[in-house]
């Protein structure tokens, strides 16, 4: 990274001007896009009573009282733990089952496998509204109503298709020759899948896990329908409860603090794993063609 002090050639000058223009073109819309989240962050450090007086971005007398209240008086981490359990188990199940099926349609050919592939596309089209009414009846008759298991099963089923597409795209790029030598030594297809192919598809697994986890973490409709007991509700419903409970001005700060804490995992995921998301989706060859 040596910086030459020679005068820049006109072409380079032009290039530099384009680069600076690009920075502006990126930053200005991004400011508008992240403005609501930034104002939420700043409001979470204001006292509820100040909220309507102090409209500035930087709080005049900052406080962490909102966070204290949310964490100690309102069982925030209880909701958060529920979210982690539900989304964690759903993600694990979805990625395992989805990648197994993705491996299946990537490595085998035949009528049943193409039919299955077609089904994954058709199932994506079924509107939630149509299946949610019967799902309600099915879940009630299975005795799963108001249990975390109900939403876990539904989340796994609903997120499978995306996992299959992404994982199939990844498995297609892994050459078959690698597995072949293992087969010669008497390794079974399942062992080869777990020991050889899965470790190679790491970015795909990361992408699938992130998308499924965040999708289920942010889900509202199914959770609000099936989880009525506040002890087992995930954070989305916890937030809804906050919003319904705290309607007067003094408590708005609590809602903003809760919002910030709820968004924190998403922010961490995006900042540390965005390259996996792009890599994973560019591997999703079956989505392109």
């Amino acid at each position: 990274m040596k910086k030459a002090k020679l005068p820049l050639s006109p072409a380079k000058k032009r290039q530099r001007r384009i680069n600076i223009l690009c920075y502006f073109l990126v930053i200005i819309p991004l400011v508008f896009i992240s403005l609501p989240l930034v104002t939420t962050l700043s409001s979470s450090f204001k006292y509820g009573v100040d909220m309507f007086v102090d409209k500035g971005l930087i709080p005049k007398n900052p406080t962490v009282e909102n966070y204290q209240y949310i964490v100690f008086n309102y069982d925030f981490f209880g909701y958060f733990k529920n979210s982690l359990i539900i989304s964690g188990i759903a993600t694990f199940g979805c990625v395992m089952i989805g990648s197994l099926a993705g491996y299946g349609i990537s490595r085998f050919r035949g009528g049943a496998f193409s039919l299955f592939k077609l089904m994954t596309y058709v199932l994506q089209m079924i509107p939630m509204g149509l299946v949610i009414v019967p799902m309600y009846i099915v879940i009630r008759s299975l005795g799963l109503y108001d249990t975390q298991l109900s939403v876990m099963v539904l989340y796994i089923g609903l997120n499978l298709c995306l996992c299959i597409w992404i994982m199939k795209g990844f498995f297609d790029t892994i050459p078959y020759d690698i597995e072949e030598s293992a087969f010669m030594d008497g390794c079974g297809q399942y062992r080869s899948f777990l020991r050889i192919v899965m470790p190679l598809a790491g970015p795909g697994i990361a992408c699938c896990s992130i998308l499924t986890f965040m999708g289920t973490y942010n889900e509202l409709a199914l959770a609000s329908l099936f989880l009525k007991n506040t002890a087992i509700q995930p954070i989305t419903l916890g937030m809804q409860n906050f919003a319904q409970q705290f309607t007067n001005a003094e408590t708005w700060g609590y809602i903003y603090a809760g919002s910030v804490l709820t968004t924190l995992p998403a922010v961490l995921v995006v900042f540390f794993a965005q390259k996996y998301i792009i890599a994973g989706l560019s591997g999703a060859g079956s989505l392109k063609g």
Partner: protein
Amino acid sequence: MFNKATKKKHGGRYVQGTIVRKSIGYSMLTPCVIFMIIVQAIPFFYGVYVSFTDKTLFGAASKGTPNFIGVTNYVNVLANTNKASDFYQVFGFTLVYSVVIIVCAYLLGLYFAILLNRPMKYRNLFRSLAFLPWFVNPMVMATSWSQMFDPTVDGILNKLFMALKLIEEPLLWKGDSFWAKVCIIILGVWKAYPMMTVMLLSALQGIDKSIYEPATIAGASEIQKFRYITFPLIMPMSITVCALQFIWMFGTNSYDNIMTVTAGGPGRATYVLTIEVFNQAFKRGKMGFAASISLMMLLFLGVCALLFVTVKKISARVAEKKEERSFESKFLEEGGTEA
């Protein structure tokens, strides 16, 4: 089962034959198929059945087997007998809502994808910021945007628009039936564009840089390069991602996005079909009626999907034809006429 001598075609590559036992393949799909049957197939067929009955959620009719009433539910929906809930108006708004969001989100997504594909400092930071709305909880989205859409003079958007002299007095936003629609469309775009950006970015990264060389040598501008080389190459991905987003937005996502912000209000101004189905099924308890609305949505989405597939096939054929001629000659031909 050891057919080592044969060659089997495999995903476009020819591989030496190996232990090809289809039963293993079937067993791999089994867990997935079980989940799909429980979660989607059974509810789907049950939903079709319910749509032909007078099943209700509560009251006397909820006990025992519901009566089979043929296509009465469908007739009721189409004839619009229920004056309190105008089906055509809700359907029309859902369609407008989805299409406007898809178009805006695609344009915004493409804008960010092109800019963030360039090498620049802090690119990962910008990318992360651009992807963030995708992962924001719908409840958080509603609370954080409520400050932007504050109906008083102090609301951020009101303040901004008044400073720019665009409006005389503060807009009511969620209180006004027109501006409430604008509100939820802005929020929908905000939530939907990051996925477009990610998909288009991954498509752009898949393009081999060397194919731009002939055009660069011939002196093509950036806009011409985009128009004649980049855009046709990302066309298949664009169609796929727009189709997917449209189907998700129309059929599923609109519920979370609107319910948390306006809950369909003011009045019924921001009602969409997903909310209508929930309302009919779980507030009024008319399961059969709700199921028939959903089935019509599915029918509509099926027609749309067929349309998308056709468009995609045509565009693939066009792209193939274009590829037959080299990029260079094509550029010179078309660029020449422009100059």
